[in-house]
């Protein structure tokens, strides 16, 4: 019996924090690729301490729904899951190349496959592009558009910036958008000055965050000048200094993120059949625009 366990941060304060986790779990559950799909949280229930005991499978894949490799994925989650013998070296990662480590979780005396976070998987690049399509309502968007991938910056985790740069470069390599740049909330180049960093009249802005919350719904829209007060909302696109800003909100809410979770599990050896293809088909973009 094959189980997927998605672990995420969650929040004591924001009910929307867990929404992407639950949504992607539902999407994957519907594919039937796993006998069960369970979710566990640092801040919500079931806790990371207890999530493995809710899983019934004997072949368990744990995928962190986190953006970067660092404190949570390398220290908190392995400790809370009680992965015996865990060492970040087992991922052999340079900060963006974590793969899988198979270890016994002493809570259930069973081996689990502990995967790298979704945020540093190459498939996350496709989700960023998919968000560009969904926020503009144009499946072929690219020509004439700039694309800004936004992250926290290095203040809290140096790998956070690495993940942003990694996907920025991958999008740039596709040649699809006129300009692609990494911007940050707490370091240069700052998202506050988004218009200064692009020549393109149209700029798509997508934060590499898992869930919408304080930063993506309040800070970034206000800092970019989309609105003076986030409670008043903002238009997509919004005019800022002669540019049209297409603000997409947290990329982790894009349905295609479920695909990255599947990719992580498949890389770790999960037998998921054609689930990836089906999720890609099922999550084709709608024409809704964020912020409406």
């Amino acid at each position: 019996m094959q189980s997927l366990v998605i672990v995420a941060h969650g929040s004591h304060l924001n009910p929307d924090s867990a929404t992407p986790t639950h949504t992607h779990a539902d999407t994957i559950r519907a594919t039937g690729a796993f006998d069960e799909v369970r979710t566990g949280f640092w801040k919500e229930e079931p806790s990371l301490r207890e999530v493995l005991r809710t899983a019934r499978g004997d072949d368990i894949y744990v995928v962190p729904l986190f953006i970067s490799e660092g404190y949570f994925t390398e220290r908190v989650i392995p400790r809370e899951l009680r992965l015996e013998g865990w060492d970040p070296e087992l991922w052999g990662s340079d900060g963006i190349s974590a793969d899988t480590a198979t270890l016994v979780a002493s809570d259930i005396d069973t081996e689990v496959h502990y995967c790298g976070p979704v945020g540093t998987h190459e498939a996350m690049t496709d989700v960023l592009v998919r968000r560009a399509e969904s926020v503009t309502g144009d499946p072929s968007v690219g020509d004439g558009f700039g694309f800004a991938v936004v992250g926290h910056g290095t203040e809290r985790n140096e790998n956070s910036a690495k993940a942003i740069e990694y996907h920025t470069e991958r999008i740039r390599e596709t040649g699809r958008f006129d300009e692609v740049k990494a911007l940050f909330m707490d370091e240069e180049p700052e998202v506050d000055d988004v218009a200064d960093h692009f020549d393109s009249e149209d700029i798509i802005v997508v934060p590499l965050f898992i869930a919408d919350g304080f930063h993506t719904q309040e800070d970034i829209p206000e800092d970019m000048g989309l609105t003076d007060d986030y409670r008043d909302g903002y238009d997509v696109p919004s005019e800022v200094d002669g540019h049209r800003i297409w603000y997409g909100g947290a990329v982790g809410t894009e349905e295609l993120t479920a695909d990255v979770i599947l990719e992580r599990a498949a890389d770790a050896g999960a037998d998921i059949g054609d689930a990836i293809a089906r999720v890609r088909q099922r999550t084709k973009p709608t024409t809704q625009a964020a912020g409406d």
Partner: protein
Amino acid sequence: MSVAEPTLSETQLAAFREQLASDPIEYDGLAAEYDADEDSYHIETPTRQTTLTADELSTVDAEQAAYISNWYFYTQEVGGEVTQAFCRWLELADDRAVPDRYDALNSGIDREWGQLRVTTTLADDGARRYEIRHVDDSDADADALTTHTDPFDARDIGTLDAKGRYRPLRTAPSLDSGWIFSELTANEVYDAVEAFYPATVVNWHREQRGELDIDHWRDEQDRQSGIYNLITVLPDEAVEWAAAACCDDSQCLKRREWELSEDEPLDADGGDGVFPCREPCSMVVAAGREWAKLERDETQTYEFELTPSEKEQIEEIIDAVADDEIDEIREADIGNGANRWRARYLREKRFDDDGHLSGTPTHPDGHDDDGNDGDDGDDGE
């Protein structure tokens, strides 16, 4: 004996024969074995012993049919040991033999799990069906409740309370009512209960087997890193206050089993919940971090001028907030100390322009600190 439609389906009989072809059955009062030499089946239940040929199995009498359908349901339809144990608890299986249980299931057996009322009934083939509703809706007409069929809907039902406030603690006694899951299978009832009250069934099951692993406060302290390291300096007496404040049945339906340490019990009541709490939850740890910061303050002697009724009013306001009774205080009930006009009047009379009670500065030495260190306590780094 009145048992619901005792006939066994061909699927059930095939499974029965297949099992006996490899091993005898001993389950819940049923003992059965296959005699290959005689090509016959020996079936024993508490009041009856029969020996039948394969062809005669379909004519087994009502009581034995009930035992066989009971075996079939639990071993072939219910996935996993934990779900089986939970479903058996739901129908009081340890208290009644199968025929009596089937009688009771015909009219439905009710159990309460937190604020859930779970009713088990019997289908014609011996399969169980489960209904879940809020305990406060026990007497409600099902048509008056919103019907759900997907067990994972329970997750959304449990996200906000009746006032639309977020419930970060799923086991808080603030579950909204007005909904019903009217016909769930065994595996679905497990998923729904798991979604309402995550990990409660599996922890209850471990406890039932005498295998509940409890992590006490000191274990929790030792494990922390990042910003939660701060709970290591929380005084022991503060842990006592925290447990009394947060883990009381009025705040959480889990039964607290963790103590200061295995050898240092807390005086606070752990509660009467059916499912255990095996370690301080993330809410308690996050709150403990805040209290650890606040407990670093030294006490200070203040001099306030209050009338006796004003002193009592402050106590009433604290009680009303702590017991979540603010919304129940009527608009014009000026006699209640926590009434809004009473509170506003007190503020007008006793606060100075800086918001200080009786004009008394919080830090007479001029040091100004509101105790906020700039983070929202909702992160781990």
